[in-house]
């Protein structure tokens, strides 16, 4: 464990040094998501909300179908 921690801290120091070194150059980032005033982020959020709502509606739909089935079975089993 101790060795792991030491290796990790060395790695961290190295990485920070590397990052500091790389600063002046052009760094590749996921700029696509931030283009045009970050509009894609809003689109992603709305898509998630819409997917969630539609998914919820699908679940509700299935639940209703199950209730209908259950009701039908219950009715047939009675004399």
């Amino acid at each position, binding site marked *: 464990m101790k060795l792991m921690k030491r290796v990790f801290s060395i790695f961290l120091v190295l990485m920070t040094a590397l990052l500091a070194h790389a600063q002046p150059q052009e760094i590749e980032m996921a700029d696509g998501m931030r283009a045009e005033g970050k509009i894609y982020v809003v*689109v992603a959020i*709305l*898509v998630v909300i819409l997917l969630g709502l539609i998914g919820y*509606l699908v679940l509700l*739909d299935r639940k*209703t179908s199950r*209730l209908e089935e259950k009701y039908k079975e219950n009715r047939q089993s009675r004399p």
Partner: protein
Amino acid sequence: MGGLFQMLNSKSIWWKSLCALLLMYSVVGGFLMRVPRLSIVNETIRALYYHVPMWFGMVFMFLISTWYAVKYLRNHRMDDDIISVEFANTGLVFGLLGIVTGMIWANYTWGTPWHGDPKQNGAAIALLVYFAYFVLRGSLRNDEQRARLGAVYNIFAFFAMIPLIFIIPRMTSSMHPGSGGNPGFNMYDLDNNMRKVFYPAVIGWILLGCWIASLRIRLRRIEERILDEAYEKGV
């Protein structure tokens, strides 16, 4: 009209997937596709893709609701009353969302959330007329009476809504596009490029309304049957 709703079988999946697909497209296309550059309105022109379909959805839901109200009065089937009520319910949700989104949009383009625009006032009065529909129904104990009076009032409410939203705003001057003498969406109001998102969005939201209403109808049918059985057992 009623046949159209019956065509949308509540158990079938094709129109529900179509609804999800169209709404997805309207969100992605609505934000990323090209819109005309207008002063004051700026990017808020995109609100048209989401605010206006609420009203299209509301009118469509109320239309189906009235259709089934007429049907109820003709043959007195309780099921038609259930369909009529649940579509009115869903339409009201669309209307409230339309009012609220309109207020947000108005706040940033007209200066105040409530501008007193004829169309805005008309829409608010139309919603109040429909609120009264639910008050009327809630105040009646007898099922038969509630369904009959509800159906009669529903027809009145629909035909009160038409002039309030579509006719009066055109007779006076209104800040809404297409009002003050012009017919609805002409080439000056709606850019051709915007139609590609707007119409799919309208169809998508209408289908979503039908979906929600169909769920409410199915639940109500089971509830009614259970209540009927309990009543029969009691007697």
